[in-house]
């Protein structure tokens, strides 16, 4: 494969950075360290500060306070055209008056690269995104997915040490998005460039990233690998934003090293206890829950909460159920293919082990509808 040369990715260091627009604080005192060659995703709902962070790195806006270093050098006050960073936009932003080839050659021309050298590098970049046959077409003759591949080639053709992507697949349909995710992952692997990717889609973040920074309300809630965020969320917001979950609330007590929560007439035991005096909530992942007929198949040590099936969804690879528990909480359960079927209205118990509960401090701000 004929990819542009492997480059050394740039590290990014953001310290105590804030961005204010008048009275509105878009970004509140964030710290973020991105390693050379890393695929870092900035994940969060709209208005959480992830795109602001990307714009700061790209140089489209200036930070109000704090420090920003790229490749070990402070870039404060450096305009975007001097930063040598590739940027891919959600709306492609290809120049409509230039052919695909001219678009990709544009950053090279600006850098004084001419003739055969330029031709060769344009071809190499277009090969990388499998668009070499389209060099003479105009952008308006291409589909959205093709345009975004050209935009990717244009952003990478000058071998920048850093590539920024702002929801690049947001305007494409699901199948195409999934295929391009794999293409982007492959290109990242081949190049060694640092990728910073903005999305509000947690599944996309999990597919692509080495690490994910979860943004909420202008702050970073947690930075970690997808597995770390899913298995050990630091906050209720992260726990709910990454993957599906059921949140259990109730009066709680501590007994030894266990936390015991009373939900209606039932008691739920979780291993561990929260430091400090925050009110605990329990987070439960759908694949850790077994669905059983009311009172059947009791296993020692398990927690059981009873309820009725409120929704049953057949997914092909299994089924997903929503169970309305006695206190009104909706619990999400995924059952694998071959498990017994339940119908809406059936009386059931959800069963789960104490070790599978995640204990987190309660946080009302995590209850906003996440879409």
């Amino acid at each position: 494969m004929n990819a542009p040369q492997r480059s050394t990715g740039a590290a990014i260091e953001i310290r105590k950075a804030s961005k204010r627009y008048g009275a509105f604080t878009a970004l509140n005192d964030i710290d973020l360290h991105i390693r050379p060659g890393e695929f870092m995703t900035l994940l969060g709902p709209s208005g959480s500060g992830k795109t602001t962070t990307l714009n700061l790195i790209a140089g489209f806006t200036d930070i109000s306070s704090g420090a920003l270093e790229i490749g070990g050098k402070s870039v404060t006050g450096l305009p975007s055209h001097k930063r040598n960073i590739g940027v891919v936009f959600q709306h492609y932003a290809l120049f409509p008056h230039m052919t695909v080839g001219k678009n990709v050659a544009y950053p090279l021309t600006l850098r004084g690269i001419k003739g055969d050298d330029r031709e060769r590098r344009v071809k190499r970049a277009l090969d990388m995104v499998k668009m070499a046959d389209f060099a003479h077409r105009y952008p308006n003759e291409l589909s959205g997915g093709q345009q975004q591949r050209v935009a990717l080639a244009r952003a990478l053709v000058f071998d920048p040490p850093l590539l920024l992507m702002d929801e690049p697949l947001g305007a494409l349909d699901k199948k195409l998005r999934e295929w391009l995710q794999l293409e982007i992952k492959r290109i990242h692997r081949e190049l060694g460039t640092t990728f910073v990717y903005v999305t509000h889609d947690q599944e996309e973040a999990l597919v692509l990233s080495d690490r994910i920074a979860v943004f909420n309300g202008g702050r970073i809630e947690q930075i970690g690998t997808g597995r770390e965020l899913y298995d050990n969320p630091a906050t209720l917001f992260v726990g709910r934003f990454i993957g599906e979950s059921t949140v259990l609330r109730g009066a709680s007590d501590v007994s030894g090293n266990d936390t015991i929560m009373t939900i209606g007439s039932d008691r739920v035991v979780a291993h561990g206890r929260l430091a400090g005096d925050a009110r605990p909530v329990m987070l439960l992942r759908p694949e850790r829950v077994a669905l059983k007929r009311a009172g059947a198949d009791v296993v020692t040590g398990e927690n059981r909460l009873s309820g009725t099936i409120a929704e049953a969804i057949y997914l092909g690879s299994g089924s997903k159920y929503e169970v309305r528990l006695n206190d009104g909480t909706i619990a999400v359960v995924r059952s694998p293919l071959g498990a017994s079927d339940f119908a809406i209205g059936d009386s059931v118990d959800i069963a789960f082990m104490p070790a599978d509960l995640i204990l987190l401090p309660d946080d009302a701000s995590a209850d906003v509808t996440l879409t």
Partner: protein
Amino acid sequence: MPSFPRILLGLFCLLVAVLLLAPTLVVIPMSFNGNKSLAFPPVGFSWQWYGNFFSNPDWTTSFTNSLIVALIVAVVATVVGTLAAFGVTRAAARTGGLLRALLITPMVVPGVVLAIGIYAVYLDTHLVGTVTGFVLAHTMLAIPFVLIAVQASLEVFDRRLETAASSLGAGRLTVFRTVTLPLILPGILSGALFAFITSFDEIIVALFITSPYLKTLPVQIYSSITRDADPTVAAVGTLLFLATSLIIIAGLLFGMRRGRT
């Protein structure tokens, strides 16, 4: 077989077209008149009035004057009007709207009123009968046309392309030259054409600020027709009609070619 209302509609359109075109087309036979009279229908046939236009210094000088003034106006008004369009489009909405209304006044204010004002100022500043005087006055009249044409282009221009170009390494001037300018060029060109025509056929202000030493073509046409009703006027009219038709046809062809790519 087309229905009766359709035929009626077609006939009506034809009538309107004839009504619009007839005064212009009448000029063509008149320019070949054998006699020195502007009577219609013409009597006889001759090329002499065309000969007169190209040989009589009154006509050639005034034509050259108009051409020079209109060309300078086209350049100056296009540059100033384009810059103004950028300012108006990219200023805050309220400021932009206010500026635009202000800049468009020369189009709205009656020509005679403007002419009186300009004449009064020119008398004091000795600009009557000078190329500078004509250029200044006509530029003022032409700027609104450029502003409107360029602003229409700028409003559909996607500014995110400028951000993209900047991220690829282009400074502000390079962004303008390589991305913004080519994409708003159709608007600028049509603005320039309007500016040229505005100046070239302007008569009201010209009548006030003209002098025996500097006449533009419209002034010459007007004085010729009031003085000796010479068919040379018809010859000039025919030539101008031909020239503008060619420009418009060329513009249409150019537009069609662009539309295809």
